[in-house]
């Protein structure tokens, strides 16, 4: 079962719709025992970083997410990916979950429309299990103004070109993954990414 963290932000129903469509058992939840029992976790998110972290804190979800991320696959989507990092500078300096070292900063371009909104093609930096079988030109759907800069370049799996390299997929190399784009809104490519996430072999990862 995949636990979709329901902390009061974002359009979590579209993530649920996509998992239902794929026949993947899932549950919207903010319940700690349900998160413990799940074999995977999705952290969705749309909105502002400080408000979302505050909501996680109010629901006492921060420590459980940090703990569970050591044991089972966790996928952060959009703001959910940004929250995986150490710190954000959206509106104010604010601590994140610190599962992947790095910071969230404004997309550093002057001559482009912000937000970065629409379909952009993934460029693979470091292949990871999430990015298998995506076809030749994997276009995915973005809506965001801030981006997740990993300290360690090895944590960057894929980026897209928007006048600079915008991180699109990050991973700690173990259980933690993040997609800046919305797989649940990225057509067939997005659905394949969700299938890949659901197929991540947990035991194999423990051995690694």
């Amino acid at each position, binding site marked *: 079962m995949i636990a979709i963290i329901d902390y009061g932000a974002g*359009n979590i*129903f*579209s993530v649920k*719709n*996509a998992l*239902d*469509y794929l026949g993947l058992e899932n549950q919207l939840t903010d319940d700690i025992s349900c998160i413990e029992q799940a074999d995977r976790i999705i952290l969705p998110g*749309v*909105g502002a970083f400080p408000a979302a972290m505050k909501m996680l804190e109010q629901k006492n979800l921060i420590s459980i997410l940090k703990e569970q991320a050591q044991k089972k696959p966790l996928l952060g989507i959009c703001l959910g990916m940004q929250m995986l990092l150490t710190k954000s500078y959206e509106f104010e300096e604010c601590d994140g979950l610190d599962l992947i070292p790095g910071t969230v900063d404004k997309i550093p371009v002057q001559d482009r*429309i*912000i*937000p*970065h*909104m*629409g*379909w*952009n*093609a993934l460029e693979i930096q470091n292949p990871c299990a999430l990015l298998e079988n995506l076809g030749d*030109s994997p*276009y995915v*759907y973005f*809506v965001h103004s801030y981006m997740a800069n990993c300290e360690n370049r090895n944590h960057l799996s894929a980026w897209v*070109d*928007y006048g600079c390299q915008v991180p699109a997929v990050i991973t700690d190399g173990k259980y933690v993954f993040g997609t800046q784009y919305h797989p*649940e*809104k*990225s*057509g067939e490519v*997005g*659905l394949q990414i969700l299938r890949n996430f659901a197929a991540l072999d947990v035991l194999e990862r423990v051995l690694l």
Partner: protein
Amino acid sequence: MLAKRIIPCLDVRDGKVVKGVNFQGIREIGDPVACAEEYNRQGADEIVFYDITASHEGRGVMLDVVRETAKRVFVPLTVGGGIKTVDDIRETLRAGADKVSVNSQAVQNPDLIRQGADIFGSQCICVGIDAKKTDSGNWTVFINGGRIDMHLDLLDWVKQIEQLGAGEICLNSIDTDGVKGGFDLPMLKAVVNAVNIPVIASGGAGKLSDFADAFQETDCSAALAASLFHFKELTVGEVKADCQKKKIIVRL
């Protein structure tokens, strides 16, 4: 690189696609969910439902259409028409829409844009505009489906809505809408140059090359058409293939 988007629009009344009613007697063509699925198969980058329902009951039906579509189609969905309040926006997003498009109501109550952007984020507030050229050479904004001239200068209005926090503009030209002679490129160019948010071209697409022309002649982010796709004169796939041939970046 960010792809230019091709957006089919479905006009829906009481849960049926209106323009499909007379189409070759094929019943399914009137079902908006089936139409959205077909556009998704063709490669639509986004799908717009434009609700032309007058009644309150009809709105509920529209939300059911959105709910059903969101279970089967995994590209962004926008709903326009009849959205008057923050509660309408909330209801529509909860049904599964990713964006709402506000038009007449935004002109009459610009604060709706600000409130919507503050509460739900700019990314889900698209402002639809119907505009027409005046004798003195500028353009003015019309409401109620192009029936009432608000004598509001188009370029003043687009700057205002950007400041209010709109995330996108869908610009429909009354002069070219339905004429099928191509998008209104001068108007489009003027608006794209006046703001720094994405602009969707609407009204006037009549042939394959009209889409590529809009992308080559202006910096618009997307192009929208309704009847052209609906009556199967062109598919989304054909439009994208033509754009790609002309070196315009599209998602294929």
